[in-house]
């Protein structure tokens, strides 16, 4: 698995301009809000999570396009190792994204003398929602035999996920959904715990599908 993770980390490093600017932009934008009153616009967090969840999925689609998925089977890795490396990366990506967001926004709130509860909760929710997106989409992507098949599975899953998020926003109304929602830290932590369990279930399903697949 070490070789697979090395490959993915090198790919992320060579394409970091694709993966990280949006997170940095949104973190800085939200930090401006936390400097004013310590609030996080929770309703936009699903959007951030979706963009962050793209990264591991993009790596799988690239493997399908370049044929690395086939090559990895000829290396001394099992298919379980391949899926394991992708889920490990998913978890690291989700936690790191949430931690980054939390640090930037909490620092802005703290140095402005505002409470840090929302920034902490926001960071945890980004991690949780990022895991949720990946957990939902990975089984479909792991079953795909081609990059275009994976892209279709990914797009359909995003539409479903986006519709659910959009449904919440439309129920609450735009103003309330941006500034009216405050999620306690304990609730966010509980959501993260649930999403972690779902991610494990998704890993088991994705691995089973990948092991059965003819590459």
């Amino acid at each position, binding site marked *: 698995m*070490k*070789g*697979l*993770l*090395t*490959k993915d980390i*090198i*790919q992320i490093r*060579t*394409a970091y301009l694709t993966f990280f600017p949006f997170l940095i932009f949104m973190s800085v934008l939200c930090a401006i809000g936390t400097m004013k009153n310590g609030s996080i616009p929770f309703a936009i967090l699903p959007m951030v999570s979706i963009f962050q969840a793209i990264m591991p999925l993009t790596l799988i689609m*690239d*493997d399908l396009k*370049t*044929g*690395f*998925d*086939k*090559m*990895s*089977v*000829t*290396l*001394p*890795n*099992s298919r379980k*190792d391949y899926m394991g490396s992708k889920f490990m990366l998913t978890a690291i990506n989700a936690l790191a994204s949430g931690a980054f967001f939390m640090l930037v926004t909490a620092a802005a709130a703290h140095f402005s003398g505002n409470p840090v509860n929302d920034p902490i909760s926001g960071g945890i929710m980004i991690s949780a929602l990022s895991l949720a997106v990946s957990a939902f989409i990975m089984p479909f992507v792991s079953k795909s035999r081609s990059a275009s098949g994976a892209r279709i599975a990914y797009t359909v899953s995003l539409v479903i996920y986006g519709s659910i998020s959009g449904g919440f926003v439309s129920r609450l109304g735009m103003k309330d959904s941006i500034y009216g929602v405050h999620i306690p830290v304990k609730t966010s932590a509980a959501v993260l715990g649930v999403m972690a369990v779902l991610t494990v279930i998704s890993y088991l399903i994705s691995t089973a599908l990948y092991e*059965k697949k*003819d*590459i």
Partner: protein
Amino acid sequence: MTNAIEIKGLVKEYKEFRLDNVDLTLPGGCILGLIGENGAGKSTLIKCLLGIIHKNSGSIKILGRDADTELADIKEDIGVVLDEVGIPDTFKVKHINAVMKNTFRNWDEKLFFEYMDRFQLSKDKKFKEFSRGMKMKMGIAIALSHKAKLLVLDEATNGLDPVVRDEVTDIFYEFTRDEEHSILISSHIVSDLEKLCDYVSFIHKGRVLLNEEKDVLLEEYAIAHCSEEELKDLDPEAIRGKKAGKYGVQVLVRRDAVPAGMNLSPVTIEELFIFMIKEIN
């Protein structure tokens, strides 16, 4: 010595194609050429061997070990080059080395970079900027740089120019100087395999027609040049294929079954294959 590869009763079914009860043995320390036309099932067989696709039934042993239960471990000792080398487009040589160093226990970094120099592969170019031939050379370098005992090469010399093909053939010869090293190589460019192989296996429409030592085949068969009348006098059991030419008929025959004094010329593996396939078709 343990057989490098033992395949028994291998079946793989698709809608319009079936790999049909394939038996194949590669003795240890030998080179086996898997010859077949496009769509014959060479790549399907190799993919089943390596676990890229799942077989329907049959048993596979690699280096004396059961491929069903120990495949990931066995691959430490196998170097594989498929018809396409699946490296990410943005990777350079140093990135590939870093990945393989963390993948293979016996990765030889010095040897890998020696192959980069030998194959004249630029260390600064991204993989997507390599030509097809360069990509194949990279695949071959990776396969040879981790002390593999078995090389599995699927159309690995396609896309290489004649000079490089010759160089790569020499490298494969060097590889098998160690008696514990074996090679399974598939190609439809039979002339490449003819020079290299100890054993040949003909595969046609998913079935193995023949699996024999190359030298035995070349001794056993010959091409007879005769007229239609002379052809009628030949024992039908001796004939394995025929082809009408401008000045008569060329017939693939078993040497021991034709009358003495018949005009015979040596056969090449390529001719042997073509005659047999035409006879079947």
